[in-house]
């Protein structure tokens, strides 16, 4: 009764959750202003789109993806052999356990009419599959511990999932080992299948089972007639029971718990463990849609959807956004992207986890679902997002086939819409004069952070620029100066930036378009007759600018010690300026 009720409860929670997640795909919109269509329209879009693809020739590709990416998990193999080994062990071990053991009475019994869970090879295989899962978890955990030294790419959700999985398997093994030594189960089975209370008849069987099947009885059977016991066993039990030794892991475990077997039998530990085992299984089942377990559904769907859509996807259409939502759900937080990310090394200098693609994706997902993030979080996401160079390596490497590149672009656009653009974006919202003015009003006496001085010295050290003779060659060769149209020439040219440095008026240069429009072509630096590292200095100024201007960027968001306020507390004039 408890079993049935809790099973159906867990199953319905699971189905409901899966439905919620899938409905979430149809509700995701990066930009509320995009007309992405109604929920019904998008749900029907999924349906018709899938039908159209499935009825086209692309179904061959989908089948190929199913075999290559889902069954053989080749993308994971590319990410590393041990990753693949761990995942194959867990995946196949668990799937086979579910089919052969959990659904044994339905699936296995259908194929093998004389199936019994205690019969070989089923008993041995069950142990084998369990061992595979445990082994896989062990390898995966070791791999994560190793990688965690570089990136903190293991979250609480990852640990929860691994822990639940391990608990299911360990409780199963414990249950089986306790069942092996259980005298009460023996008694009940004899009651059920021999239908006699006669100890004369039962005792030889008891003796036989105590010896051959390692059941631990509280009182020794009176008869030691093993021959009779064996005959009785073959008549009544052998059809359903193989020797416990083939349950190699559980059996070893039962030998270990042997000394406490009597006590375990008395408290009916087998019943308790049975409740615990299926309880955990049902908890895991109910949690499936809400944890990383969901990737069991989302990743194969995504891999097949990708194969189905191929290159014919139309960016920006409602169906495409639906698919992007599915992709975001397909992340298993495996961290492969972060391992291959071109800019991940920056994380060691700037400890912002949003630089790592595996972590940034969570923030971008929140953005896509329209969540209101606080300013600090948004700033961190913005920094991480715009450090990304869109080099495509994460997308190429993702074992779940997520087109991360597209998501990063969408994320960047969303950040711009929410007024958290990249430094190029926000610095240009004000003119050089306005920035200098703001810095002046909000003079922050705190010296520049020492840790950063290590990485930039060109613009700090007078020796780098004092040799400038203002000959204007840098300005002459500068393509940015040459390309500036009449509307918006740089307020200062490279040689004038050098002069500002010489006059110790660095603040005036920080927000200048020359500094921010520089394309780092190094023409100025190469042509400078004085050998001044002009480009390096301009680049340096950007780094300083980000650090110095960021705090005064939002006048209303921060009140300085001297209580300064600017003329434009709500930033109303910002757009007029840019």
């Amino acid at each position, binding site marked *: 009764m408890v079993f049935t009720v809790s099973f159906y409860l867990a199953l319905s929670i699971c189905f409901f959750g899966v439905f919620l997640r899938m409905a979430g795909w149809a509700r995701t919109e990066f930009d509320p202003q995009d007309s992405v269509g109604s929920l019904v329209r998008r749900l029907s879009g999924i349906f018709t789109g899938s039908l159209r693809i499935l009825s086209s020739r692309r179904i061959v590709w989908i089948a190929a993806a199913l075999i290559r990416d889902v069954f053989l998990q080749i993308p994971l193999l590319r990410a590393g052999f041990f990753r693949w080994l761990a995942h194959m062990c867990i995946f196949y071990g668990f799937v086979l356990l579910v089919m052969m053991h959990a659904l044994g009475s339905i699936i296995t019994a259908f194929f093998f009419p004389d199936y019994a869970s205690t019969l070989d090879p089923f008993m041995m295989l069950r142990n084998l599959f369990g061992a595979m899962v445990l082994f896989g978890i062990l390898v995966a955990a070791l791999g994560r511990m190793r990688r965690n030294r570089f990136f903190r790419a293991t979250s609480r959700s990852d640990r929860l999932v691994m822990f639940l999985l391990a608990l299911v398997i360990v409780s199963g093994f414990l249950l089986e080992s306790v069942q092996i030594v259980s005298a009460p189960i023996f008694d009940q089975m004899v009651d059920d299948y021999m239908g006699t209370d006669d100890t004369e008849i039962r005792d030889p069987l008891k003796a036989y089972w105590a010896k051959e099947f390692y059941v631990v009885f509280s009182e020794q059977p009176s008869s030691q007639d093993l021959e009779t016991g064996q005959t009785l066993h073959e008549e009544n039990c052998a059809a359903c029971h193989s020797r416990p030794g083939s349950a190699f892991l559980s059996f070893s475990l039962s030998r270990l718990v042997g000394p406490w077997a009597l006590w375990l039998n008395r408290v009916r530990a087998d019943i308790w463990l049975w409740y615990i085992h299926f309880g955990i299984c049902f908890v895991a089942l109910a949690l499936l849609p809400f944890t990383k377990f969901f990737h069991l559904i989302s990743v194969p769907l995504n891999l097949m959807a990708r194969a189905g859509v191929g290159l014919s996807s139309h960016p920006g259409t409602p169906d495409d956004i639906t698919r992007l939502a599915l992709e975001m759900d397909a992340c298993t937080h495996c961290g492969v992207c972060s391992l291959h990310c071109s800019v991940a090394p920056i994380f060691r200098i700037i400890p912002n986890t949003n630089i790592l693609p595996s972590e940034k994706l969570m923030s971008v997902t929140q953005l896509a679902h329209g969540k209101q993030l606080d300013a600090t979080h948004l700033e961190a996401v913005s920094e991480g997002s715009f450090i990304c160079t869109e080099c495509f390596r994460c997308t190429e490497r993702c074992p779940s086939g997520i087109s991360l590149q597209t998501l990063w672009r969408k994320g960047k656009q969303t950040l711009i819409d929410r007024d958290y653009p990249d430094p190029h974006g926000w610095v240009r919202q004000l003119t050089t004069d306005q920035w200098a003015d703001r810095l002046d009003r909000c003079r922050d006496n705190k010296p520049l952070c020492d840790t950063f001085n290590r990485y930039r010295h060109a613009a700090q050290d007078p020796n780098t620029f004092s040799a400038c003779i203002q000959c*204007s*060659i840098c300005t*002459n060769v500068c393509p940015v*100066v*040459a390309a500036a149209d*009449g509307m918006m020439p740089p307020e200062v*040219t490279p040689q004038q930036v050098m002069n500002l440095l010489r006059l110790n008026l660095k603040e005036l240069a920080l927000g200048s378009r020359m500094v921010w429009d520089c394309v780092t072509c190094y023409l100025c630096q*190469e042509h400078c*007759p004085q*050998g001044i590292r002009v480009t390096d200095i301009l680049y340096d100024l950007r780094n300083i600018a980000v650090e110095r201007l960021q705090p005064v960027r939002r006048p209303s968001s921060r009140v300085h010690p001297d209580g300064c306020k600017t003329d434009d507390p709500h930033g109303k004039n910002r757009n007029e300026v840019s």
Partner: protein
Amino acid sequence: MIVAENCIHCDLLVIGAGLAGSAAALFAANRGISTVLIGRTGNLQFTSGLLDLLAGYPVEDANDFSQSPWESVARLTADIPMHPFALIDPPEIRQAFTEFLAFLSEVGLDYYVETERNIRIVTSLGTLKTTYALPTSMRHNATALKEKQPCLLIDFEGLKGYSACQIRETLTRSWPGLRSARVAVGSGREYYPQPLADELENPSVQTDLVKAIRQHLRGEAFIGLPAVLGLSAASNVRQALEKQLGLPVFEIPMLPPSLPGLRMKEVLEKHLSGRKGVKTLFQQEVLEANRTEDQTFICHAGPGEPMVTIEARGIILASGRFFGKGLHATRKGIRETLFNLPVKQPESRSLWHHEDLLHPQGHPINLAGLETDKHFRPLGNDGQPVYRNLFAAGTILAHHDWMRMKCGGGLALSTAFGAVNAFLKMRSTSSN
């Protein structure tokens, strides 16, 4: 310790890629000497593009345009026997010019020379400049000035450091036929010479310019424009304008850095690099120079850090004076930066300059530099050559004030020529 993986062997290492160094590399290559040329070319942009020989001597008579430059050279060397021109025969100076200008012509940068006489042209300040070799784009500048023909001077809206009106105002008394006008090109924003030159290479911009100029023409015979008519040496911007306007067009040299210097820099960079026998290491510098027992120089070089080792049987030091960083002035005196060679200089810092900034005699510091023997070998404190295979050329030499004497081009070419010949002579005697 300096470690460099790449090693280059050569006969001659020329240190300094200014006019003297480039010319030395060219002359050496023409004589079949395997040469490495190393140095920054940036300073070439500061050359006016004109090649002076000697504007006149004594300097106070420089405005006496009737003098033959060769007579001036003779008077100069008689008066100042230590002047670098005294180390070389006048025919060799002619040869140096001929050889260098032939090279420039070969690579598309034509010059106009009147051989026996100097040429005088109008500058962007309205002053007159006496020179010896003139880029052909400025040839009509001399013609128009000489004949005082009616001439329309054009300047561009937004172009810095150039005003046609200023030239006209300065010269109008002696040249009443001058008129000036301002035209707008492109968006009419603030222009620096190089971007403007780039833009003028566009035929549609040329057509617009011709239209704009026509509106101002009142029957003038010449049209003078700032020296921004195209960047590349072989540029035919001027020819295109002449064809469309049906009038001779000339360039007026501007304040450096300007296009004629840049064109010189571009052709030298491009065509010396491609020349047989020359290896160029532009924008790199010799960081350390040592000499082995068999008199070979071992130089470590690179762009700021050692990346290449050069083994050379001889060196021509053409690293220039202060701007070229061949000499370095400190509070205690002036030193040579690479070999720490003795520098001829005023005895104390207080004697570097006259009190009068525009003193007609110039400032003593402008005569500072290396003294050499007649084979261009820098002398040590004992009056003997420091190394028998180290030569010097160009402005780093002592006893000349090229800016005041207007002899920069001639000095660079002739001393480079002399130094290369001295190296050849040294090599032939040592191999005998």
